[in-house]
Structures are given as structure tokens and as C-alpha cells.
């Protein structure tokens, strides 16, 4: 349960809002690198944190992320001509470079200096790990580039996709740290893949939870019974504001997610698979590209999932009844998204009734509210902007009953180059 003012604080991320300013202090994923494939390619509309922007790659391969609308008459520069080191508005020919600086106003004499007084808002756009990242905060406070492991491993060891989710970012992100839903909603997927620790997950439906704070978020441990009186632990890291990872299974790639606000009623669900020490196999890549695992199939030419609210997510009641899927919706990503979208564009948390297994969500909200207020009221910089914080992994492991998850979390969840993940 949250009061409306608390819910507003967490869910509103437009300019000037506390949570919006908190997001703006971090590097966030803006586009897939493949969306701007080459010099002078078509510009791409990008909306982030309720700001409408346009991304383009100029004739010299420089990347730009600028205000979508021409300063002259407010025309969308998506219609623009990307030519000769700038994006030209097709209405009256005004032209902008990657910094948003107006470099040409054909109707005005160059000597007038008019163009030099016109500059659109711009943000840096940097490629790392197949993703274009942007930073939308004060330029003088720009942190070092992000160092998430998936973005630092050699090419071929990671696969990244994104999909539009038709809900606020928070209810999407909360699914990423809600370990108690897995054995229900995703039971069909666990049943279909009985390798690794999935058998242990299915065998113990009353797990215990341990939640440990770290400098920039939480480690959420789920403990189940294992053979010989031991405990099977699955550890989910959450890094503020919105990076989560799924505990690994056997030698499979590790899943991770970013949940990035588009506006207050939509978000990008970024889905990542990476393996710390080996290339993804051809079969794994084919599965991911076809929308398998945490990825989805799309409406052609868009990032909207093929299963979406307009077709009731391709609900299959026969599969639901047979138990092939628990909810009747296929695919892990859309199983989550369908239920989260059903809560409404912005979930009304004043009508929730949370219980003790929701403690991870309760504590995550508390951390976010505290961090956003600390930044807004006292200027406390977010800890998650430090790249060292990004060297994190999920983990799955078996420990003796007297071993402390809190003690081992630091080691098992630290991403070390060339060292394999801790997995069962």
C-alpha cells in the first residue's frame, strides 16, 4: 500500500519531478545500436522520461540526441533530411548538428548571427555493448560511462532486445524483483526446462526470503530446501533505479533487465542475455531472436510485442487449463507484461494489500523514495552512478544451512572479467 502522493513520487519521471531527476543522474539505455546503422541513416524518434527527442547519426558517424521539434515552427525533425553533417527540417530548411546547434537558416543572412542564437536541447549518446546510452542530467555532473557486465564482455557474448510496455515503469520493474511470482506465473517454463535448479524451485513452493541492502539497491535472496539438508539460494540484484537480473540456471546465459520510462504510462522493457566467459551459441541466439526466453516477438516493424492488449495477449485457455502455461499467455516476457499492464497505466497502489513475501518490493520502494528525496532536498548523489556498482551479477548456489547468504552475496554477485557465473 502506498498513499497517492508516495505513488506519484515514484511513478512520475518527467522533467522537474524528484524521480525524474533521479533517473536523469544515471546513464540509461536509449536505443539499440542497430537502430542507427550508418552515417546519414534515417533519424529515429526517441521518447525518454516524458521528453520527445530525435536520434541521428551524421555524415561523420557522430551521434546526436536532440529535441524532436524544430525551433522555428515546431515541426517534428523525424521528417528531416539527414545530410551533410546535420539534420535539416524539410519545412523551411533549418539545419541542426548533433549538439542541437542550428547551423543554417537559409532565409536569414549568415551575417545576421541568427542561427548562432538557436540551439535545441541535446544529450550525449554513446555506444557501448550494442546499446546507445544517454545521460539527461546536468552536464557538469555527468558520471563515467556505465560498466554493466553485459556491455563489457567481448562481442558475441551478449544479446540485447527491447519492447514497449504499456504501463508505468515501476510496476514493470517490481516484477523483476518479485521472486515469489516465479513458481506460479512462470511454472510452465520451469516445467519445460527441468535443468539446473528449476527442479528445486518447483519442489519447494514455500521458500524463505532474505533481503540485504547494498549501496545502490538490494540483493534479494530466495532460499529453498536442497538435498542433504542444504539450502538452494537464488539471488536477484536490483540496482537503482531500475536494473534487475534473474538468477542463472546451469550454464545458460544470465538474464537482465532495464525498465526505462518513456512517459508516465509507458516504459521500455530492455531484456539482456549475456554469458561472462563464452560466446552465445547459434541455437541460443536463434531462440532469442525469435522471441524466446525473456525476449518477445514483435508486430513487424515495431518494438510492440505481437501478443499485446489489443489481441488479449493471444490468451490460450486450453494451455492454461492443461498447465502448459499458468496464465494462458505464452512467453516469460509477455506473461509478466500482460499482468502488469492489466493493473492500469499507473497502478493504484492505495488499493494493494501487501504481505510478507512482498518485502523486497516494499523495501525497494522505500529505497527509491529515500534516494529521490535525498537528491532533491539535500543534493545527495545517487550511489549507482559509480561504475564499480555495475560490476554485479545474479547468482544461484547451494549452501549449508548455517551459511549466511549475506556473507557470500558480495563474492557470488560480483562480476569479475573472465570468471564464470555462480550457478546451479
Amino acid at each position, binding site marked *: *500500500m502506498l498513499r*497517492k502522493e508516495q505513488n*506519484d513520487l515514484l511513478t512520475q519521471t518527467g522533467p522537474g519531478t524528484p524521480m525524474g531527476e533521479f533517473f536523469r543522474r544515471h546513464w540509461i539505455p536509449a536505443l539499440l545500436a542497430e537502430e542507427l546503422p550508418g552515417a546519414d541513416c534515417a533519424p529515429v524518434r526517441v521518447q525518454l522520461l516524458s521528453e520527445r527527442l530525435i536520434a541521428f547519426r551524421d555524415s561523420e558517424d557522430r551521434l546526436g540526441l536532440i529535441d524532436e521539434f524544430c525551433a522555428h515552427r515546431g515541426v517534428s525533425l523525424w521528417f528531416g533530411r539527414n545530410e551533410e553533417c546535420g539534420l535539416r527540417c524539410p519545412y523551411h530548411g533549418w539545419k541542426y548538428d548533433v549538439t542541437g546547434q542550428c547551423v543554417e537558416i537559409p532565409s536569414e543572412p549568415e551575417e545576421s548571427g541568427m542561427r548562432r542564437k538557436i540551439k535545441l536541447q541535446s544529450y550525449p549518446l554513446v555506444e557501448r555493448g550494442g546499446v546507445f546510452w544517454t545521460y539527461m542530467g546536468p552536464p557538469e555532473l555527468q558520471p563515467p560511462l556505465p560498466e554493466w557486465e553485459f556491455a563489457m564482455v567481448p562481442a558475441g557474448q551478449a544479446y540485447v532486445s527491447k519492447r514497449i510496455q504499456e504501463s508505468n515503469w515501476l510496476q514493470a520493474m517490481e516484477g523483476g524483483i518479485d521472486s515469489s511470482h516465479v513458481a506460479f506465473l512462470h511454472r510452465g517454463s520451469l516445467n519445460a526446462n527441468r535443468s539446473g535448479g528449476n527442479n528445486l524451485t518447483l519442489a519447494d513452493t514455500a521458500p*524463505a526470503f532474505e533481503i540485504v541492502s547494498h549501496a545502490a539497491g538490494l540483493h534479494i535472496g530466495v532460499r529453498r530446501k536442497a538435498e542433504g539438508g542444504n539450502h538452494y539460494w537464488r539471488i536477484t540484484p536490483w540496482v537503482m533505479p531500475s536494473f534487475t537480473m534473474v538468477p542463472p540456471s546451469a550454464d545458460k546465459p544470465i538474464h537482465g533487465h532495464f525498465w526505462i520510462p518513456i512517459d508516465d504510462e509507458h516504459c521500455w522493457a530492455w531484456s539482456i542475455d549475456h554469458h561472462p566467459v563464452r560466446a552465445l551459441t547459434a541455437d541460443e541466439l536463434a531462440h532469442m531472436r525469435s522471441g524466446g526466453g525473456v525476449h518477445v516477438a514483435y508486430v513487424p516493424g515495431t518494438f510492440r510485442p505481437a501478443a499485446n492488449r489489443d489481441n488479449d495477449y493471444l490468451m490460450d485457455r486450453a494451455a492454461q487449463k492443461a498447465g502448459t502455461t499458468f496464465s494462458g499467455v505464452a512467453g516469460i516476457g509477455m506473461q509478466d507484461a500482460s499482468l502488469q499492464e492489466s493493473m492500469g497505466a499507473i497502478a*493504484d497502489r492505495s488499493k494493494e*494489500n501487501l504481505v510478507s513475501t512482498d518485502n523486497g518490493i516494499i523495501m525497494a520502494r522505500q529505497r527509491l523514495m529515500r534516494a529521490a528525496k535525498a537528491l532533491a532536498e539535500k543534493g545527495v548523489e545517487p550511489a549507482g552512478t559509480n561504475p564499480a556498482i555495475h560490476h554485479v551479477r545474479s547468482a544461484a548456489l547451494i549452501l549449508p544451512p548455517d551459511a549466511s547468504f*549475506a556473507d557470500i552475496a558480495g563474492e557470488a554477485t560480483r562480476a569479475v572479467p573472465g570468471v564464470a557465473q555462480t550457478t546451479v
Partner: protein
Amino acid sequence: VSARHGLPGRVQRPNSRPRQVLVVPLDPVAQARVEDSRVPLDLADAVLAVTVAGAEADGIETLAEACRARGLALTGIVLPGNRERLSHSLGQLRPWVGTLLVADGDEDVLHLAEVLHGRQ
């Protein structure tokens, strides 16, 4: 910026009644930092057992047995204290609680109690 809160047409009548949350400080240091909520165990819907890292949470077994007899969910909370002895505190609570939380600060207890209570 849009702020469409909730779902149009969703029934707005209350869907629950407030719960009673019992907060039990387990050691003298926790007693000094966290207020006992003074909810009788027989009226409680959920129980938070609180200790400070490094302290002796001696009463946990008795409390856990009482909760088990009444079918009550028991959450353990370890407040900041002696970080070196955190494992000891976790080890004391782990066999008895369904959820164990290493808190960031004392105010986490009140926040958790409020949310579980369902207070508007």
C-alpha cells in the same frame, strides 16, 4: 506529464480492512530503538521480530513457536549494528522466519509495519 492513476471503472469501495502488525524488539538495543507496537499476539495478523546486528535475539524461538501455533507470518528484521556479527544475527533468525530483512535504518521497521498494516 500525464498521471492517470489507477484504472477507469475499477470499483472504488475498500477491498480490505486494516491489519494488526505486532512489532517485537528481541534484544535491549532493539528495545531502545524500536517501539513495541503493543498489539496482542492473538489479535495480530503479522509479526515483525526486530534485532540489532550482533545482539542476542534470544526470544526468537519462543516467539516463532507462538506465531506458528497461530498461523502467523513472521518477518525478521536486523537493524544496523555490529556488521562483523551480522552473520550471527542472521543465523539466529533464519530457522524461524519466512522473510529476513537486513534493514538500512531503524525507520524501515515503521515503514514495513505501515505497509503491512494497510494504513492509508
